[in-house]
């Protein structure tokens, strides 16, 4: 009220650090060159088909089923990875046991392993003749060469994201807050649900988003275990590779563009939920 002319928002905040223009421009240029340029090229390539052409590609039953499979299984796998990743992070942070550091280091192995190696390992493990696959086959479950196999591979590669995003926050949980809850009469479970978990939700969502994005984009570790049957266990990235080998570059770019669009919308939605939960939980 005292300064009615003062703008509510200013592009450039006063700061002691110099060179705002230079650094801002530099950051934007890097972002454009590294991230936006390849994506723009992709969309450019696909736009050769025209919007109706892209819609036609999406309507193709084989493409549609591959997209459904890729996104559906990725969501399920990211959800699973988030739950188990949270548990792993919790145990690694809160408990002290022999070999903890080794397990902690092993969490990152899905990052480091060449994806093809991971895929072959998983395939041989879950194949009907494999160590785990044989046991599953006894109870009538076939994991390899089905969507279940894809799911397993996606959980495997998504887990490190889920663990690493929540781990630092779990480590930061103030023990006194839990004690305060206990002195107020709350059971261990109530403390966990009402006091400990809510502040972790944004981090869990980040892990979920990363695991989901990784699952959608994953190729190497999945194709070995997936079996790649059209309409059953053929993922969209594989379909892109098939199109490429058929020299159908526009078709490949179209599928890629559709994937890009859906992924972007999903990640945007997750980010919005995150922003909301941050506000909601008072981290302003």
């Amino acid at each position, binding site marked *: 009220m005292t300064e009615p002319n003062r703008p509510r928002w200013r592009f450039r905040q006063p700061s002691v650090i110099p060179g705002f223009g230079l650094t801002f421009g530099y950051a934007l240029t890097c972002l454009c060159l590294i991230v936006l340029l390849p994506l723009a090229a992709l969309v450019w390539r696909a736009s050769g088909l025209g919007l109706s052409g892209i819609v036609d590609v999406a309507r193709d039953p084989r493409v549609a089923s591959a997209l459904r499979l890729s996104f559906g299984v990725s969501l399920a796998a990211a959800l699973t990875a988030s739950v188990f990743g949270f548990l792993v992070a919790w145990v690694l942070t809160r408990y002290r046991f022999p070999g903890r550091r080794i397990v902690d280091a092993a969490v990152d192995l899905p990052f480091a392993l060449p994806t093809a190696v991971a895929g072959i390992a998983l395939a041989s493990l879950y194949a009907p003749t494999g160590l785990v696959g044989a046991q599953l086959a006894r109870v009538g479950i076939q994991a390899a060469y089905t969507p279940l196999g894809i799911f397993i591979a996606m959980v495997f590669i998504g887990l490190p994201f889920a663990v690493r995003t929540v781990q630092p926050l779990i480590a930061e949980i103030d023990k006194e807050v839990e004690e305060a809850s206990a002195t107020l009469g709350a059971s261990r479970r*109530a403390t966990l649900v009402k006091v400990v978990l809510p*502040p972790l939700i944004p981090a869990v969502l980040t892990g979920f988003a990363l695991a989901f994005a990784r699952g959608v984009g994953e190729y190497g570790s999945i194709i070995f275990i997936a079996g790649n049957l059209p309409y059953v266990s053929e993922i969209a990235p594989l379909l892109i590779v098939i199109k490429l080998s058929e020299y159908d570059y526009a078709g490949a770019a179209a599928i890629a563009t559709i994937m890009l669009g859906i992924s972007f919308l999903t990640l945007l939605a997750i980010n919005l939920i995150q922003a909301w939960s941050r506000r909601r939980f008072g981290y302003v």
Partner: protein
Amino acid sequence: MLASPETDAVSGDAKTGDARGRGPLRPSTAVRPSTAIRIEGLSKTFDTAAVLHDFDLDVRAGELLGLLGPSGSGKTTLLRIIAGLDFPDRGRVLFGGDDATGLPVQQRAVGFVFQHYALFKHMSVADNIAYGLNARKRADRPSGTEIRRRVGDLLDLIKLSGFGDRYPSQLSGGQRQRVALARALAVEPRVLLLDEPFGALDAQVRKDLRRWLREIHDRTGQTTIFVTHDQDEALELSDRVAVLDRGRLEQVGTPDEVQDSPASATVLKFLGDAVEVEAIAEGGSVRVEGHPVPGIDVPPGLIGPVKLYVRPWQIQLTEPASAHLHGTVRASYRSQGRQRIEVERGPGRPLLVEDFDGERYAAGRPVGLRIVGGYVFA
């Protein structure tokens, strides 16, 4: 067995009742002191370091007890054991005559206030205060309107009416600590435990909150134990002070008792500045450099060289002829209405710090020191 939380809640109702202005439940005088909490032979060892040795203490119902001690004296551990957040190796904690040693923290009905507030950051102020009531089992839980009413009353009590919808991050340190106190009071605890409650606040806020806590205590009569390492805080706030040192109870008594007749040199030194003077005890009196010092209680049978502990105000500057000690003024300054004079008693001898009404003394001036009181310990 222990009184169930429900019966406690009933008596607690009366307590918050008077907090709303129906008059004090406990007139601060005429009440026969009954024991609310008894600590018997408590011992606790962390790793290899013992933090409590065979510790005994009675806490009277309705009193405000200060646990005073230097860091590492075991005071916080004692508080946490009473709360049920730590468990003793040996000994018992009795609540109103019932053994509570093995009772889990949730069933002890204590209110605990942490030094760093430990508020639930993702909950509004009102939700923080209502937390303990909402956490109760359905059968014991007050209705929604009743909870809202109590939260409103407590917000009034902590002078934060209208702040119910804010989040802890939007409050100042002093406001957060008041919310933490309201949250603890909301469950109508049988005892309120405060762990260095003002430790994280700056000096002025700390003073205000101290006075305010005393007021709240006088109005509610809530049995309260608080931990502090600040002797001024303990002496100003407490009905009784328990002085701890290295896991042992050195003395417990009213602020006047511990100041007038400290039980040990540790208590005396911890409660304020003191000067050590070499003296000789003989026949119930004390001599310094051959001159008798008046007004000293000498423990019976104490004979030979002793240390005489003298408060700064128990020393007078005087003519060298009638003095116990001699020295030269090193510096002189005024602080809070008193003249403080630092006197050097010769090379390598300790500096004396005097409190003295009167003139400023020039540095280098030779003076005589006359001791008019002090303490000796066996």
